[in-house]
């Protein structure tokens, strides 16, 4: 039949157009498959590391939240992030609190084994300065012009940022200093603002509160990975009290996180999949959760030191390296649209079939 031959012909034309457009779109990445030596330096995509560590609780009985934050601060400093790249926010002072039997110390293990406060600590926001407004301003960078550098998050589009929050929280909110809350929607919007202003390359968000998983439910910006200490409907529990100090020293999730991080050194190759296994239900009583669907890379290829440390790759070489080809990153995945040639071919096919079925006399109505 004429129809069948025309139909086969149309299908052939359509496939030709479709494949041509597909290859023109995706051929550019094929050229850069073979990296030269310098390219390996940029395989992770970030050049500097920042950390924003926030403790949102006030009063002496919330000692454990300050100890949580300080233990993450200690690990992050030990792995190489300098004080100038850490924004530390502590809502109350536990170390020099008059109730502290050992002033200028904050312990994480009972029997006073480990002083996470140390001798070299710089707190950027303390006391009444830790508010929702200041936290969001630090994240989005909208600070008054007279704010000093140590209180700013001066990250760029090649920064990996670690954000750690701890305190009292609930389903969809985190309480700041017993007087105000931040909701998960606000947090997600703040991260979207950061993404729009290209203030991060990749962001790791860790939260240790009750029902912490609700805080990352609403994230929608790319390149975010989130961990929480408990699911919605569960409480995060504290670890152990110290009878001399009289309060609980740490929360369980952060206690086991600290133990995990103590084994990490700047050259270790542990990846995120090991971090997800920290504090299973048998140790934590609550179920820690994580979210990686917004993250581009596979969590198994993300090193712990990509976020917790500031590892610089230094390689001494005697040869000259020509950087003539621009090193391109894998293009960021946009939403998939069918290639333009496909649509054109499809419409051509539809029109030809229509006119074959109903006769060519309708053609003159169109042209």
């Amino acid at each position, binding site marked *: 039949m004429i129809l069948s031959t025309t139909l086969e012909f149309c299908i052939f034309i359509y496939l030709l157009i479709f494949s041509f457009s597909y290859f023109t779109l995706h051929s550019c990445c094929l050229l850069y498959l073979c990296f030269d030596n310098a390219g390996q330096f940029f395989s992770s995509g970030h050049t500097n590391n920042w950390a924003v560590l926030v403790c949102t609780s006030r009063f002496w009985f919330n000692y454990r939240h300050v100890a949580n934050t300080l233990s993450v601060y200690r690990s992050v400093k030990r792995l190489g992030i300098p004080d100038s790249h850490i924004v530390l926010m502590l809502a109350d002072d536990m170390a020099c609190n008059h109730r502290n039997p050992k002033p200028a110390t904050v312990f994480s293990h009972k029997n006073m084994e480990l002083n996470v406060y140390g001798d070299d600590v710089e*707190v950027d926001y303390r006391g009444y300065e830790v508010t929702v407004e200041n936290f969001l301003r630090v994240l989005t960078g909208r600070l008054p012009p007279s704010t000093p550098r140590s209180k700013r998050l001066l990250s760029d589009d090649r920064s990996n940022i670690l954000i750690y929050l701890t305190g009292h929280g609930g389903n969809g909110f985190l309480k700041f200093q017993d007087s105000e809350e931040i909701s998960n929607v606000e947090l997600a919007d703040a991260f979207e603002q950061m993404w729009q202003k290209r203030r991060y390359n990749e962001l790791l968000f860790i939260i240790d509160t009750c029902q912490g998983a609700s805080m990352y439910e609403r994230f929608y910006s790319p390149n975010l990975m989130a961990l929480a200490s408990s699911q919605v409907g569960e409480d995060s529990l504290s670890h152990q009290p110290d009878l001399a100090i009289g309060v609980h020293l740490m929360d369980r999730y952060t206690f086991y996180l600290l133990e995990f991080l103590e084994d990490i050194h700047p050259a270790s190759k542990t990846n995120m999949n090991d971090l997800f296994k920290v504090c299973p239900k048998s140790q934590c009583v609550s179920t820690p959760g994580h979210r990686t669907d917004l993250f581009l890379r596979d969590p198994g290829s993300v090193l712990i030191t990509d976020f917790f440390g500031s590892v610089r790759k230094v390689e001494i070489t005697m040869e000259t390296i020509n950087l003539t080809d621009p090193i391109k990153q894998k293009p960021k995945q946009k939403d998939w649209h069918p290639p333009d040639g496909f649509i054109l071919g499809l419409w051509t096919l539809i029109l030809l079939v229509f006119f074959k079925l109903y006769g060519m006399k309708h053609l003159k109505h169109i042209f």
Partner: protein
Amino acid sequence: FDTSAPETVDPSSVPQPKDDFQEELVIRPLHSGDIYASFQFRTVWETDFMRGNKVSHYRLFPKSLGQVISKFSVRELHISFTQGYWRTMQWGQPFQPSPPGAELWVWFQDSAECKVYAAGCVDGTWKELTNVLSGIFCASLNFIDSTNTVQPSASFKPLGIGNETDHRFLRYATLPREIVCTENLTPWKKLLPCGSKAGLAVLLKSEKLFHSSFHSQAVHIRPVCQDWQCKTTSWELRQTLNVVFDLHNSAQGKREWSLFKMFSRTLTEACPLASSSKIYIDITDNPQGEQFEVSPATPLLSQAVVLGDRRTFSVYDLTQQITFGTVRSLNLLIRWKSSEGDMLRPLLHAERYVAGYGLQTGEIHTLMYNNHPYRSFPVLLLDSVPWYLRLYIHTLTVTSKGKDNKPSYIHYQPSKDRLRPHLLEMLVQLPPNSVTEVTVQFERALLKWTEYTPDPNHGFYVGSSVISSLVPSIVAMDTNSTRERPLFSSFFPCKEESSYFVRVYTEPLLVNLPTPDFSMPYNVICLTCTVVAVGYGSLYNLLTRSFQIEEPSPGLAKRIANIIRKMRGVPPL
């Protein structure tokens, strides 16, 4: 701060300004068994921050403070962080007094941009300066704003040279609530040329320093004369740290003190960048060694006139290798043998408290004691009260020995709600051997609910009163400020021989304001919404609902019968 363009001048041809660094530690055993240690680190630099050329090569002087001075046209800067209250009657007078919390007072330069009448200019610079300092010292100094800043007219005269006396260039603020902890000590130590690695600064371990009755660290910047003619001025930076260790907390009740017991470290070397590094131990009360003994013994003795008295000190010079002995470390030991003898009573001290009951009104009482047996002297009392305690100045009374004592100079600036605090400065003559009481009544204001702190039931702080005075001295003071003297005796400038300058701070006050119940907005919203939903909803339904009669649906048997009847063509049941 921007970086200047690289200069093409050969650096060796430009004469480098001379700078000098000295460090010292004074240890004074107190009669109560406690021990008072005062560190002082002084950097003098012959340079000019104010003239056009930007200073770019810093050696001993910290760059962060140098940039602050030049950017904000600062002539003098005094900032102190204190934890604890200085008990004058038990401990005597401190070498550098400071109030609890944070205190900052700055004299600004009369620069071309800021003329006297552009008052907003100095205020803008003040705000920026407090923000920058809050970043340098990791303290919440950004809470200093117009509601706690005052411009005292007479109490805070410049301590350095200069002819600026217009008090519109002076700003004074205190934050009595400010906490001092290791995070303030860390950046303070980083300003020192040797850091905390060498010299006396190795003793500054936070775990011991904050486990004390009193801890105060301060930074003082001022211009000083280099020589008698004062042809060149240089900038002096003094970093002072005063600490009083408690007998029972740190020494377990035994009256035996050593460097190791106080600081958990011993000294091994002086700071290599220091031109002088000395330790002074006050042995005036121990001329023959009957009260306490000091080991290792030292042949060096020194006498200095400080705080109106001639004191004798044993000196340990750390720049001499022989001080460290064969063990190559110095651990001074002070062992008490007897506990007799009484202390020289301080001539001036003060107390302050709040009287009254309830949350409506109250009364502030300030008591000033003059312990001199026959001399009277004038004191300047500075009171800065926040706007939410509304002072009734017509109830101000000053009485000494039961009789009215009229002050010869009063400078009062009333407060403006939410804008500025009360400022009261008075010159009062204190009769010999008497107590002078200043009372003023106040009323507590109700704040807006967003102005309360997250813990309002703790109370609100009122900063310490400052009492400055020239107190008659027992011995003649040394008025030659450029002679080589120990640092502790040259802190306050001496203009006349018969008196010395003393500043006493009272306690800060903790006042409760009427506090609302913060859950009330939530309660009101719940109640209102319930009432509206139940009341209005019911009314609306009653008015707009229409009722229809409806047949109840028939049972199953009846429905089947109706279907059969419909098929037959017969009307249903």
